[in-house]
């Protein structure tokens, strides 16, 4: 069983994902957590692009990454203001 080039890149990207997921688990500062979560989403988008699902990648980039990260960032701003 030999791996073609693209597969190795995918494996590396998935290893990145696993690392980031563990990092999110153990980070303390919420701002960093949110930023790293954005990176996680972008890597996921890359993997989907490489797996021939461009429609999904576009939707995830627009909705999943951008909207979710923005919403969470806004929430963090308002919650800090209340303090």
């Amino acid at each position, binding site marked *: 069983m030999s791996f073609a080039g693209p597969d190795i890149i995918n494996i590396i990207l*998935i290893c990145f994902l696993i690392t980031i997921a563990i990092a*999110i688990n153990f980070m303390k500062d919420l701002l960093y957590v949110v930023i790293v*979560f954005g990176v996680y989403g972008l890597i996921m988008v890359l993997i989907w692009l490489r*797996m021939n*699902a461009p429609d999904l990648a576009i939707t995830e980039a627009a909705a999943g990454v951008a*909207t979710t990260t923005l*919403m*969470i960032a806004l929430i963090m701003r*308002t*919650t800090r203001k209340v303090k």
Partner: protein
Amino acid sequence: MELTIGAKLLNNYPFLGSLIIFGIGCYTVLSNSNLLKKLLGINIMESSIFLFYVATGNIRGGVPPIVDLAQPEALYINPLPTGLMLTGIVVSISVTGFALALIIKLYRFYGTMDANEIFEIRNEGKNNGSSS
């Protein structure tokens, strides 16, 4: 051709990776007391399942399922999982939005985003006799 379990696992790396991320997300949800982190854990789990579906639909050497009239013999990948996951993404965003609204409201009530602190504040309220 009989393969060892290790080779099979390596060949099915997207499934294995997505299930590992699923487990990590599950752990994030269960072990973290911060409400925002719980929510991110849910998001991680959902996107890992999306990865599982996309990997199911992929074919090595295939092209995206957009009909190219110039190349009638192209090998398209399976379009169904992609279509399903478009729905899944919308669902995950809806849940995220609602959960964030709840977090804001809880923050207004308790002034914190930590489940343990909320628990303590509520217990103090009970001991002081005031109903929360």
